[in-house]
């Protein structure tokens, strides 16, 4: 099932390590002489963000609500002896180690646009496994219609959980056909290295045509269910955050427009760019045929 989706970009297009290590200094230097507006990095929508951008600007409320909080606080996350409970309508339920769940499956590099519901975006070179491959390994029963996910809760290591900023554990869900789509991956790395804790180590979901909060981090439970599972932001405010949450420039968030976004890392003079339907992944349109996406936002 791997290799069902092909990157527009190849490995050669990923910034070499020496470059992403230096990118911030380069941008800073360019800004200093007023060149930032013409920076090729800022202009090209599919140039991956630097590793430091990706690791320093995060939403991971378990570690605080500020963008820089996860980078500061997620070091405490204990990822040793990680296990993932697989339950519900599956043939092989149980408590899986990471190796049991994904060992031997094909890890691909997927360079995806990542669009936050807050109207900023990045491009991330993920390393991950198609979720469909994992689902096949655990054996999905025919009565299953949705996949539910749950993030780890380590109160003693998570300052946001101690402060109860939103209800925990963080939960998310996908329709089974969304989960099985070739674009949907479970990522374990970024730039060919194990991902940082603030990015959702050791394993997270990546669904590139949906707003970022659907791509749940640091997963400890995968449940196959027959009814639409709860999702955290939908529980907090159903009017603002729907279950589907597909990137859609035509459906505004009740408080702000989703028509444009700003790719982070472009400096103080970075322009906004138009947000694309399904974040540019038109191949998923068939999943929603006949659905009014303004109703099922």
């Amino acid at each position: 099932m791997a290799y069902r989706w092909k990157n527009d970009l190849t490995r050669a297009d990923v910034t070499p390590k020496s470059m992403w290590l230096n990118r911030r200094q380069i941008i800073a230097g360019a800004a200093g002489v007023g060149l930032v507006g013409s920076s090729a990095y800022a202009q090209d929508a599919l140039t991956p963000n630097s590793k430091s951008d990706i690791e320093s600007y995060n939403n991971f409320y378990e570690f605080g609500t500020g963008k820089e909080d996860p980078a500061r606080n997620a070091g405490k996350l204990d990822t040793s002896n990680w296990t993932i409970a697989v339950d519900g309508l599956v043939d092989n339920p149980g408590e899986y180690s990471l190796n049991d769940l994904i060992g031997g499956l094909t890890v691909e590099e997927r360079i995806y646009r990542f669009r936050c519901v807050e109207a900023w975006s990045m491009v991330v070179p993920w390393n991950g496994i198609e979720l469909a491959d994992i689902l096949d390994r655990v054996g999905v029963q025919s009565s299953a219609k949705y996949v539910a996910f749950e993030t780890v809760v380590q109160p003693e290591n998570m300052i946001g959980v101690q402060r109860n900023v939103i209800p925990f554990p963080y939960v998310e869900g996908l329709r089974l056909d969304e989960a099985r789509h070739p674009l949907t991956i479970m990522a374990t790395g970024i730039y060919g290295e194990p991902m940082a804790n603030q990015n959702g180590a050791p394993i997270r979901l990546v669904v590139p045509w949906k707003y970022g909060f659907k791509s749940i981090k640091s997963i400890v439970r995968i449940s196959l269910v027959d009814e639409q599972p709860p999702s955290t932001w939908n529980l907090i405010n159903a009017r603002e955050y729907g279950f589907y949450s597909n990137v859609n420039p035509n459906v505004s968030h009740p408080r702000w427009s989703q028509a444009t976004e700003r790719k982070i890392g472009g400096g103080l003079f970075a322009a906004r760019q138009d947000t694309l339907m399904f974040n540019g992944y038109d191949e998923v349109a068939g999943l929603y045929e006949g659905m009014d996406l303004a109703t099922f936002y």
Partner: protein
Amino acid sequence: MIVDRINRATRRVPAWPIYIVAVAIAGFQFYQGLTGALGPEPINALEREYGELALKLLIAGLVITPLRTFTGVNLIKYRRAIGLSAFFFATAHLAVWAFLDVRAWSRVIEEIIKRPYVTIGMAAFVLLIPLAVTSNKASIRAMGANWRKLHKLTYPAVLLGGIHYVWLVKGWPAEPFIYLAVIIALLAVRFKPFRFQRARA
């Protein structure tokens, strides 16, 4: 007594350095945005820094009167500089939003009309304009009692500013709610029932 000592010290400390510090802070933060010190999304960061400073200074301006009535500490000579610095940061906040963030007049107008949190932020700014314009000795002399009446516009302006901040956040981060609570408390002590109790105490 400590209060007398503070009040005596204020005679020697002029208000004008407040303007210099305000401009220096704004300039330094802009420089930080240029050099990457505000993180990979400096536009939002700068917008937020300027906006928070405007709110903080508006709150500081509201503290001065109750501070004098409750403790006797008199910082009234700094109030104009604090208020004008608040207006300066509110202007900088608006400028970053319009020129660096939204960047198109048509969308600026659309956002002001369509997004309630922008509408009330803008309303707060508009309320501050006549206050900034009349923050000089000539206006005070010319307007007499009306000057005090006009400057009560600070109350709705700072309240709208506090609501503007709460309205745009996602989830329940502490800061905006703390700002709003402090603003409401500082406005509440200005109501008559509170003043009556204070007079008897």
